[in-house]
């Protein structure tokens, strides 16, 4: 394990029961996963087509998501250009899947680029209802638009607001806040040189994440569902953000059944303690899910905020 990576991730040793297994997982490249795009055909049709083309697909516990064996550059396959599948980490597909939008609903993806989760939501909604995919970063809009077009998404409007300032003139049935984060869950040994941790990174990001959640709650109809996700292990960006959010009231955290191996949220980190409610959060570790590290919490709006 490179020293730099150990400096970043070493502090999580108290959280990880199987530390050696966790480190070993980071020594290997993450597998490639493909989410089959049922907006372009049935799962079995696409699966057959890909298999007949020589691709080796292995089912996972997440519907329509497969491990794609022996294929290093899935984005260069014609079937990718045709939008028959989308290359997406397995854990990255879980937030949209758990949000479970119905076909006719009104859904907001507050931090949408590059569109993996937005297009998954469109797939789950069978291209019906309406998704608003918001992305503030102009340079990321291009990839968002390109992915939605390639995947045949017709029920999505793209907006470009700062998420924490999204206009309060619309209410949504379900909202996904896949927040900007330190991204440590995506780190592998071979990529560590590309990662630079900035001073007070977690603290600064937590501030943004908290504001995004507060705004999302205001945009949610009473009884509506909100999912918060990050791809980091940092409790400052996960349980602490959730704990602060719960203290504001008008929202409750929900137990989420998930078949992928996971751990509950933690209730203490360094000198801080959090509400026992945060144990309802889900932590995913690469050594157990064979994908990127992830964190997910699901909320229901209880009041008329």
């Amino acid at each position, binding site marked *: 394990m490179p020293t730099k990576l150990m400096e970043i991730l070493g502090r999580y040793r108290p959280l990880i029961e199987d530390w050696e297994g966790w480190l070993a997982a980071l020594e290997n490249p993450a597998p490639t996963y493909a989410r089959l795009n049922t907006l372009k055909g049935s799962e079995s049709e696409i699966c057959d087509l890909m298999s007949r083309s020589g691709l080796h697909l292995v089912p996972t516990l997440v519907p329509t998501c497969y491990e794609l064996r022996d294929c290093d550059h899935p984005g260069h396959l*014609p079937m990718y250009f045709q*939008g028959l599948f989308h290359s997406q980490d397995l854990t990255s597909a879980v937030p949209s899947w758990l949000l479970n939008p119905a076909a006719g609903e*009104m859904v907001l993806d507050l931090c949408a680029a590059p569109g993996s989760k937005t297009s998954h939501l469109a797939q789950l909604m069978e291209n019906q209802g309406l998704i608003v995919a918001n992305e503030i970063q102009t340079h990321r809009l291009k990839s968002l638009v390109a992915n*939605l*077009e390639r995947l*045949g998404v017709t029920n999505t409007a793209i907006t*470009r607001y700062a998420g924490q300032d999204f206009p309060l003139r619309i209410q949504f049935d379900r909202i996904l806040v896949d927040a900007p984060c330190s991204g440590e869950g995506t780190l592998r040994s071979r990529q560590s040189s590309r990662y630079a941790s900035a001073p007070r990174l977690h603290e600064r990001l937590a501030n943004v994440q908290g504001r995004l959640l507060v705004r999302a709650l205001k945009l949610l109809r009473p009884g509506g569902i909100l999912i918060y996700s990050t791809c980091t292990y940092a409790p400052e960006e996960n349980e602490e953000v959730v704990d602060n959010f719960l203290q504001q009231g008008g929202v409750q955290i929900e137990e989420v059944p998930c078949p992928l191996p996971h751990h509950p949220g933690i209730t203490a980190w360094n000198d801080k303690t959090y509400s026992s409610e945060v144990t309802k959060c889900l932590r995913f570790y690469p050594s157990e899910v064979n994908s990127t590290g992830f964190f997910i919490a699901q909320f229901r709006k209880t009041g008329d905020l």
Partner: protein
Amino acid sequence: MLNFARPETYSAVLSYLAARFGIPEEIFADYGILDAGSNLRLVSASPHLDSLSAIKVEVLGLRLVRKTNKGWKPTSAALQFLAPWISKSVIQLEPAEEIPFLQGRAIERAFEVEPGYVAVQGRTGILGCGLYRPPFLLSQIPAASRAPFFFSETKE
């Protein structure tokens, strides 16, 4: 306010897609068509669309056709999306022609279709839009999408 295509534009583009590609007009019953300057965009019909007038929308739906001096030009994304309903103006490529087409190169040979825009089909379905100008099939795959494509069986 969303700028839906005027009725005459809506009818004209559906007639074009029916006449050129055999796409039944009925399949558009569940969609609206937006006029977005030089493009027409296909959007799923939904009562929620009205609420979008309260916010600023950058892009909505799928780009269906582009307006040109010579008429409508279908996008590759739209032809891929509408593939199950396309029955005319289809060119079937030989396997060896698929990658060059996807990389934007012209294919020189005669095809039994009327000159004009065509849906180009490979072994895995509709690949995208081409312009048949005998004796050339000109690839209309967007430049930004011309990745170094390969097929899995040829990957080394």
